[in-house]
């Protein structure tokens, strides 16, 4: 557990980065600090491991005032992940991961064994251990950064915009990976980002910081969307917050059957038909035409996100983005299960609302 008690940070030039912050990060949760630049979210994070010391106020980590612990000792007990991973370019991946155990006085063999375990935990092949960071992609470097932060098994993990320098596809992978890891490891994680979608996705609790270092709202993502505390939070959460709310709803949507065809077949296409490969994975759509045609790559209409059966947001997006207005639902292997319609999603939403599942 991390407690901020009336914490203020005033820099030498007089700017107030953090203003009277009172906030408790519950143990075993991911808490996200979100806000635009200069709102004090990163400063708040850095005060936890004394990269910055507060001007006044107290920060307690598991009940202990951080100012009473000498910084290097404190920091070895707190994992830290930064934006560009901050890996040591002159050390192999394995030695990078072994850094904190070695600093804490483990012998080299034990530290390396532990490092190898961690590479596996973050989903990197063992042969990455011998490489230098420059030989890894940005996403892989970030995984190594997470492995390094976890090496000494610290109860608290600080993550300072760790995924903001990688491309959106890799970022989503890393986010899912973090959620998976957290389900296993149950750390107390403070995660800083300026991306509200990332905050809503990862945070069990989200702290929205406002310019001038004020904490504008500290709540669960659903509360934040349903009841923003003030105009700042409302505008930060965005105009499409009703749509974002769908991310947190898991109502059942009826799945309709759909006609499918394979490449090379000659068929009559009376209505929208989904073309699939040999593993029944979607390849694209054929619109209805008169007469028989041969199904080939060039008459396929592609597009449309896929619905994996998880949230209403995914279902609605799949239906809205599909050229046929039918959202393709797939199972874990990517095979087609059927299609969903936007009006069914809206009906499911109404049902969820009637059942009191939509946060007010």
């Amino acid at each position, binding site marked *: 557990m991390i407690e901020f008690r009336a914490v203020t940070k005033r820099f030498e030039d007089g700017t107030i980065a953090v203003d009277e912050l009172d906030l408790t990060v519950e143990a075993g949760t991911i808490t996200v600090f979100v806000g635009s630049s200069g709102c004090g979210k990163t400063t708040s994070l850095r005060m936890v491991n004394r990269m910055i010391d507060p001007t006044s106020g107290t920060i307690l980590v598991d009940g202990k005032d951080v100012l009473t612990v000498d910084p290097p000792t404190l920091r070895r007990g707190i994992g*830290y992940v*930064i934006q560009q991973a901050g890996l040591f370019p002159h050390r192999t991946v394995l030695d990078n991961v072994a850094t*904190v155990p070695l600093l804490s006085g483990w012998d080299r063999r034990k530290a390396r064994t532990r490092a190898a375990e961690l590479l596996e935990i973050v989903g990197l092949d063992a042969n990455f251990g011998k490489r230098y960071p420059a*030989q890894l992609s940005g996403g892989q470097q970030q995984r190594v950064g997470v492995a390094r932060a976890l090496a000494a098994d610290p109860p608290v993990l600080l993550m300072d915009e760790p995924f903001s320098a990688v491309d959106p596809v890799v970022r989503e992978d890393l986010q899912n990976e973090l959620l998976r890891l957290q389900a296993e490891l149950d750390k107390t994680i403070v995660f800083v980002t300026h991306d509200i979608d990332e905050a809503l996705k990862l945070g069990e609790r989200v702290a929205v910081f406002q310019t001038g270092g004020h904490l504008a709202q500290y709540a669960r993502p659903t509360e934040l969307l349903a009841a923003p505390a003030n105009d700042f939070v409302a505008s930060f959460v965005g105009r499409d917050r009703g749509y974002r709310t769908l991310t947190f709803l898991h109502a059942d949507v009826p799945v309709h059957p759909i006609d499918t065809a394979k490449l090379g077949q000659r068929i009559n296409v009376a209505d929208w038909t989904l073309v699939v490969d040999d593993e029944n994975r979607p390849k694209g759509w054929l619109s209805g035409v008169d007469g028989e045609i041969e199904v080939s790559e060039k008459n396929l209409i592609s597009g449309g996100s896929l619905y994996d059966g998880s949230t209403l947001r995914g279902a609605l997006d799949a239906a809205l983005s599909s050229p046929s207005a039918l959202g393709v639902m797939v199972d874990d292997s990517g095979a087609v299960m059927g299609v969903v319609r936007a009006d069914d999603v809206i009906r499911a939403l109404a049902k969820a609302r009637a059942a009191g599942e939509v946060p007010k």
Partner: protein
Amino acid sequence: MTWIFENWERFWEVTEVHLRLSFVPVLIGFVLSIPLGWLASRSQTARAILFPLANILFTIPSIALIVITPVLLGVKILDEINVIVPLVIYTIALMVRSVADALSSVPGHVTAAANAMGFRPLRRFLTVDFPLALPVTIAGLRVATVSNISMVSVGALVGLGGYGQLFTEGYQTDHTEKVLAGLIGTVVLAVLADGLLLLLGRVLTPWARAGR
């Protein structure tokens, strides 16, 4: 060339002196440059004093410095100290800037990560900052070494100076072969030393060529 083979013992003797007079100052100067360069990379004030001072020292003509050193130090005129001290000064003048630049070239996010991980300052310097500064430092060290090898000859003016002795003797006795021998010795030594340092740099920094 024939002079070298006919007078091998004499040639080897001046070579040894030349080696000693060039490498001892490089070594001392390099070691002293590390804390000074570190200071210059950390503090604006230190940089504002050290860099101009280094420039001024480097512009003092070597002849003047070598002639005046015995007077200032009060040692015997034939003592090797008289050549070593000026060359240490030149090495420092060159290396302070190299070491400072090298340390400043270490990426900020890497040092920040090291701090956040719980490195104490000395350990961070020895195991993170300094190793990462090596490529730039060694480039500076190569320049300082080669420049020292060439400058040692000036010591001949005070009766020391390795191959420099061959230059003065050859000039006074109109013996071109001797001058040529000194010249060849200097060039070979400089090329060898430079090559060795280049190799040393590659062995010490395998990571610098990774991922390229």
